[in-house]
């Protein structure tokens, strides 16, 4: 579990992270979502002690990160896959982590296999790696100590679609076995397909957080029916705001309620569902528009 409490980080007069609080729970993937420069990376660096918080605290499994005696065995961290000595081979970088943590030597080859780096690739120097290969190596370094908590900053960057799928399955399986995963992204779709909980940040402040289902729910219900105008007026009578555009009705009410209204009005529904990604995307853009550099264009 990761607990961030009222963390603020200021650079002079600029506040990069402003009173951020959230919890990433065990057994769940927590998506840290926000546009570039929103403060995601700074928050993550504060959690692992690379950046000092101006105020507030962050704990991992109930302890401050610096108080972990051998942090690699408890928290796997990948903040920037390119931050490696370009002259070392992939295998060597993994070996250094294995040595630091005091792990058995065979872990290195095991991890290379898990992240899909061939022995040949592992013998190449990192300067010749693609970003995707660096991400795989970074994931291997994060996982080698078999930690219970993973903190990954934009891990899908540079991965091809198959790699993204692989990463998603890996993290899903990891959380399903009881691990805590905190991963950041500036891409809504990525977070949407993998996260159980979402923390949205813009301009250093948390703008929204909750389970993905709740956030989807908040975005409302999409309905198609044989008699849409009839359904619209039935909802209007009950004071439930709804808008119809073309052949789709959109409302903030829950699907169950809309279904009940339709049943009583005797209107056959052809489709009834919670607003999907498009709804979340609307919310993401709306919530972050103010903090985005090109807010209007979004």
């Amino acid at each position, binding site marked *: 579990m990761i607990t961030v409490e009222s963390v603020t980080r200021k650079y002079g007069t600029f506040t990069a992270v402003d009173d951020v609080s959230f919890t990433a729970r065990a057994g769940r993937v927590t998506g840290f979502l926000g546009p570039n420069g929103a403060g995601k990376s700074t928050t993550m660096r504060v959690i692992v002690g*690379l950046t000092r918080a101006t105020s507030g605290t962050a704990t991992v499994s109930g302890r401050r990160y610096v108080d972990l005696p051998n942090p690699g065995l408890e928290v796997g961290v990948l903040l920037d896959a390119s931050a490696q000595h370009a002259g070392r081979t992939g295998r060597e970088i993994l070996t250094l982590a294995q040595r630091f943590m005091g792990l058995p030597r065979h872990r290195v080859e095991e991890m290379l296999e898990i992240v899909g780096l061939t022995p040949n690739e592992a013998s190449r120097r990192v300067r010749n790696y693609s970003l995707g290969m660096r991400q795989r190596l970074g994931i291997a370094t994060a996982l080698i100590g078999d930690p219970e908590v993973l903190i990954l900053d934009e891990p899908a960057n540079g991965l091809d679609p198959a790699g993204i799928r692989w990463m998603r399955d890996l993290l899903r399986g990891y959380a399903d076995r009881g691990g805590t995963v905190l991963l950041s992204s500036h891409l809504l779709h990525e977070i949407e397909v993998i996260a159980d909980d979402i923390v949205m940040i813009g301009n250093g402040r948390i703008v929204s957080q909750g389970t993905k289902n709740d956030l989807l729910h908040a975005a409302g219900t999409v309905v198609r029916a044989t008699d849409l105008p009839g359904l619209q007026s039935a909802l209007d009578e009950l004071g439930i705001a709804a808008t119809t555009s073309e052949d789709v009705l959109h409302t903030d009410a829950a699907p169950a309620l809309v279904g009940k209204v339709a049943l009583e009005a005797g209107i056959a529904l052809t489709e009834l569902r919670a607003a999907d990604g498009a709804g979340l995307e609307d919310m993401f853009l709306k919530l972050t528009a103010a903090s985005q550099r090109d807010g209007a264009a979004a």
Partner: protein
Amino acid sequence: MTAIAADIRPIAAAHRIPLLRLTQVELRKMFDTRSGFWLIASIAITAVLATASVILFAPSDQITYSTYVAAIRFPMAVILPMIAILAVTSEWTQRSGLTTFTLIPHRYRVITAKAISSIALGIVSVLLAFAIGALGNLLGAGVTGTALVWNMTLTESLYFVLGNVLSLLIGFMLGVLIRASAAAIAVYFVYWFLLPTIFSLLAASVTWFRDLQPWVDFQYAQSALFSFEGALTGEQWAHIAVTGLIWLLIPLTIGLGFVTRAEVK
């Protein structure tokens, strides 16, 4: 999770990573890149070249063991500090510190491990230089037909080791203080070549500075360690202590303050 035996983790996770292990890994990191490997290899290579040039070019009446050792000193005074600089600065310049300081969140422990491994490497290098110098002395005496002279006492040898460790530590200090490879190396050259030149020019032209020089010029003070003229006097030790405080310990302390506080990006 991918099962390292469940019995390993709780035990290992409860114990702080021992300093010995950190030092071993830091030592490994000095060798595991091509540039690092060749930099260290260049100690042996330049020691052989320096030895060869003594045999070829030194006047035969000057060919003694200390001549070889003194010749080897020149490349060592550049290479050892480079090794120490890069051991520290690569964490920032190559950004590997993002991983290192995450795996070991106590940065002063990493820096301590780097200091110990650098000094250990420095001492081994000096011992290697002694050995190469000795071979050169044997070979030189054979080739030139001059008498074989072993004119270094144990004390002088220890001074030589200490002097080289001090040069290495200057590099280390600059690495800690500047934390950028190119800049730290550039400043080292200023420190080691330009500053002493300025001091000696000053001493030559300004009378009152002449008496002050041993107390402010680190290299001048250290040169006693390389003069092979027997034991140092108390005053000479005081010169080394005072200049070492000014040029090594104070900036190192400032640098350590930066390292432990600065953000790692």
